[in-house]
């Protein structure tokens, strides 16, 4: 790492955070550790991170006030109760500043993106782990289970709706199989849309594509899933007569078709 790179970063940081005090040597070491090739385009953020690790009070205040904000959002996306948010925030802060038995997590930030974004990711991770450890009933724990939520979507297709009502179990199985047969991208996008409740814009953001592309993906995913489901059902229902007999005895189920029931299901 060149002297010049360090100086540039230093200047950028001071310009952005004039009140923050940081030892130049300490900064240089930190910089060389996390970003040896000086590829980061966010030197000021690195500066702030380093200052926090060095426990500069001004830096810490700024961090709490401006950076942790995005953490609230990300945590709230997993569980909106203020209790949870507060607790997760607490854990996050501790983890960032003090570490979980190792170095402070903040040292992992390498400046590839803005600090705020990185903190958001870290917060999400923290919150998810908290969730997992809380062992709630009826969590969607694996890839498989979320398809049963998908079953609740109204397909806007009367024939399929009919089959869904009459043969709920078989429908669930067929749906699961149909989803499993999707390409990973489509499956992922489908889940984001229906289960996570992301908008097209947001999905576009994640995959760095135009919202129209994201919309097309979702459409395609839906179409493929329901087509496959219908085909599977048609095939299976006429094959297995014992299955049919059992279904005849089944009471009409009243599957709810409200999408809002899906939203925002807990996701592990």
């Amino acid at each position, binding site marked *: 790492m060149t002297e010049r790179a360090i100086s540039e970063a230093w200047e950028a940081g001071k310009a952005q955070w004039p009140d923050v005090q940081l030892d130049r040597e300490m900064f240089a070491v930190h910089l060389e550790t996390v970003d040896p090739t000086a590829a980061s*385009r966010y030197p000021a953020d690195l500066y702030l991170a380093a200052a926090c690790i060095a426990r500069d009070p001004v830096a810490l205040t700024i961090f709490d006030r401006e950076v942790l904000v*995005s953490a609230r*959002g*990300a*945590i*709230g*996306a997993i569980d909106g109760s203020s209790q949870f948010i507060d607790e997760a925030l607490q854990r996050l802060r501790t983890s960032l500043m003090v570490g979980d038995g190792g170095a402070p997590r903040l040292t*992992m930030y390498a400046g*590839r*993106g*803005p600090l705020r*974004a*990185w*903190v*958001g*990711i870290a917060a*999400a991770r923290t*919150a*998810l782990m908290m969730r997992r450890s809380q062992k709630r*009933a*009826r969590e969607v724990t*694996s890839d498989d289970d979320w398809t049963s939520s998908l079953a609740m979507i*109204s397909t*806007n297709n*009367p*024939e399929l*709706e009919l*089959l869904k009502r009459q043969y709920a179990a078989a429908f669930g199985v067929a749906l699961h199989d149909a989803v499993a047969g999707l390409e*990973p*991208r489509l499956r*992922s996008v489908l889940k984001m*849309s*229906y289960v*996570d*409740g*992301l*908008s097209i814009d947001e999905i576009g*953001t*994640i995959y*760095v594509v135009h919202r129209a592309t994201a*919309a097309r993906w*979702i*459409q395609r995913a839906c179409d493929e899933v329901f087509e496959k489901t*219908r085909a599977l*059902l*048609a095939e299976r229902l006429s094959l297995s007569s014992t299955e049919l007999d059992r*279904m*005849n005895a089944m009471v*009409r189920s*009243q599957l*709810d*078709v*409200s*999408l*809002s*029931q899906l*939203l*925002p299901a*807990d*996701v592990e």
Partner: protein
Amino acid sequence: MSSEAPTECPTDDTLGALVEHALDATEAARVSSHIDSCELCRAVVVAAVRGESKTPPTKLAAGTPSLPAVEAAASAKSLVGTRMGRYEIRSLLGVGGMGQVFAAYDAELDRSIALKVLRPELARAASVLAERLVRESRLMAKIAHPSVITVYDVGREGHAVFIAMELIRGETLAAYVARTRPGWREIATIFERAGQGLAAAHDAGIVHRDFKPDNVLVESEAAQVTKIVVTDFGIAMAAVLADAVNEMAGSTPESRAPASASLARLTATGVAIGTPAYMAPEQLAGGAVDRRADVFAFSVSLWEALFGERPFRGNSVEDLRAAMKRKPSAPRGNVPSRIVRALERGLAIDPDKRWPDMRALLRELAAARSTRRRTIAIASAGGAALVGLGIAGALVLSGSANADPCAKGLDGLARSESIAREIGGVLDAAAKKKLDDTLAAWRDTHRATCSADRDPPQALTVVACLEARKLELDAFLDDTKHDGAKASPMSRIMVDPARCKDPRQGLLFSRVPADPVQRRAATELRYRAFDIEAARDRSEFATALPQAKRLVEEAGTAWPPVQAELLYLLGTTQSMGGHNADAIVTLREAAALGERTHHAYIAANSWIQLIYVAAFDDGDPERALEYATYADAALDGIGRPSDLEVLFLYFKGSAMVEGDQSKDAEAILRRAVALAEQHAPQYLDRATLGLGYLFEDQGRYADAVEAYRRAIEQLERSGVTTSAHTFRERLAINLALLGQAVEAEQVARDAVAIAERSVGDDNIDRPIARTNLAQVLLHVGKREEALVEVRQGGKLLAKIMGERNERYGEILSLEGTILVEMERFEEAAKVLARACEIIAFGAGDGSSQHAECQLSQSIALDGLGKSREALALVDRALETLEMFDGEVHPRVASAYVQRGALRDTIGQKAAAIADLEKAIAAFEQLQLEPGHLAGAKWALGKIVWKTDRARGQRLIEEAVALFAKGSASWAPAKADAEEWLRTNGRPASR
């Protein structure tokens, strides 16, 4: 996007960079792929991204049951008072699975609309659904049809998608039918309108796939249906109604109409999913679906509305499939078999065997529904065949079983004769003679029967029969004494007492139980029946009907033949009182019981009555002819008495005319007339009318004139004065059609005078006579007077029957026609528009009456210069008329002339020529007033003139010659033609 093995999870740093779009393309792609297969990373990224977004999602904890409808409504209420696009949301109408529907106000166009809003969370999470919704709305917006819900606008507001639609303040068709329980005719009319909406959608390439009575909305005002709209084309729950709101307010599915409760259609959030019972079998199998699936669903819906149950029943797809293996069977009822057959075809399991499209089915339904009634038809025709029932007869045997029937002797006769002398002054000569003859015949027969060498058993029945006749006689005498000459004509019917001499016939009039106790009971019942019968004949149904019902109930354990008689009484009372459905059921019972108890007389009368009720009141000529075969057999059993035979022939012949078997009908009706002249003058009027209508239908006006003239003579001779005005009206019209103007007018005026004299103020015979006079005046060219008369007639009729009935529409139509002749096109168009609307509603959109009105309307439009509109109307009208009349019929031919002229105006020369040539060919075949043929030739001549001078000239010359032979009303046309020849023609090519 290949499916690789999951790679190692990227660092948080990398992920952070990803969502900030700070990674280069290659790396971003790699990370994206990883996210596709790594649940944890995906979750993390998702959470982070959501955390960044401005609109916080509404979160539910895992395991929360879906929002109950009420909560959804509560959250929706918050939208009330806000704006969505340019619409101000006013109130919540209902909630569906796909969104809420609000009543909203569009300030820009100043109207209320229905606004369907896709719930914000939904739009966010499933924008694909939103896209779909928008796409379907666009399709819907392409259809402009009164029976398809109109989509005004589609738009987005933030995350929400909204659709602006027509606002319907009403209820579902299912609810309407359950609430009002209309008759089959109205149900068919309403469904036809909905079906037209479906057809329009098919034209635009849209298949509904979910047609059912819940998806049809009905707006009605004061028991009149004003709007029928099909909604929800592939969109769950479009415009919503009181129905849905009520359900969410707590009523259970079971409290609704039984047929809909059997398959619970609503889920907790009030969403209706496609109900399997309406789905076509190919739909259930998940196969390809085209417009014929809608035909199936429509047929199921109409079947359910008509019969109260679905054609295929089952609680699961399997049950339904099994039920579909068998043909559906319609429950017994009034619905004409033609309609049932049309629906059976609509319900064919194989789509290739079904109606190919909605229009084919609708045409069939329209044809089945319309009855062919005359324009300005004959008035009130409570037509029960009331030969003296002789019910109360025979039971005058009182006293011990061995009493001598002749013991009573001629005691009662003296009283009758004295009353007869009293009322002699009131009756006209013919009637008086009849009365005297009858009394004499009675006396003679009695004497002959009770002579010294009589045969006791025979004497019994003959005397019993005579007693019955005497009761009838006395009833007539009392009636006339009471009401004077205006007494009900029915009571003037008197069976010849001499008939009692025939043992077989005597038996028929006097069934008597052997047991004296039973005999007394039967006597009591019959006496009471006789009073009820008299009340019925005076049209006092308010008393007669409940009394008749009660009598039948009380007679539950009585002697069966008497029961049959009482049932017959009830049935005829119901029929005359207008309760056709009940009448049919009762009369069938009477016939059956009559057959079983060998009361052949009652059986025969019941079957004969049924012919009438089925053909005319129920519009089912096929069933009527079925009854005719039974009546025929029963008549054989009683030796075919002439009076019943005449009625039988008249009813059967008329039923055949209704059922389009006119050729065979003529022979039958002629026989009826001949027989009536000889033996049953009291039915001569009916028989003649039957024959006359037949001739008029076929355009054989000369034959009709002859028949009516003859009838008038006959009736005068025999002293029966009923229908005197009626015959004159029909005679006048036919004379006018034949061009005999002066006589026609005279006879028509006579008819009006007679009607005023002989019927009461509230009898529609009077306005009808006036209207017929107007028609005659029109034919003879006296338009101003015709206008006066028709308006007078209309006013009178409206006073009696109100303005919403078909007859009033026909009178208005005539007024419009007169105005057209007077070239007052503006007024005419208005009047005719109203007339056609009323007629369409009464007689049906596809009825011949409506078609005729449309023809008149089109002339008015053409007069106003709206030739294209006029042509469109004539096209529709012709389609209908051809269906009813075939190509060679006066009114069809006239319509061709009309259309030919219009087509020429628009520039469709070749088509115009084709039409006119058809018209000419038809007129040449028919024996009409020559002016019609002249008019057609004149019109054609003008058109071909430009391309074929010689032919044109020839045609017009022929036309002029024919005009000269025609009636006065063609004079202007003749003048035009002559003028044309003068200015354009070559010198006469002779």
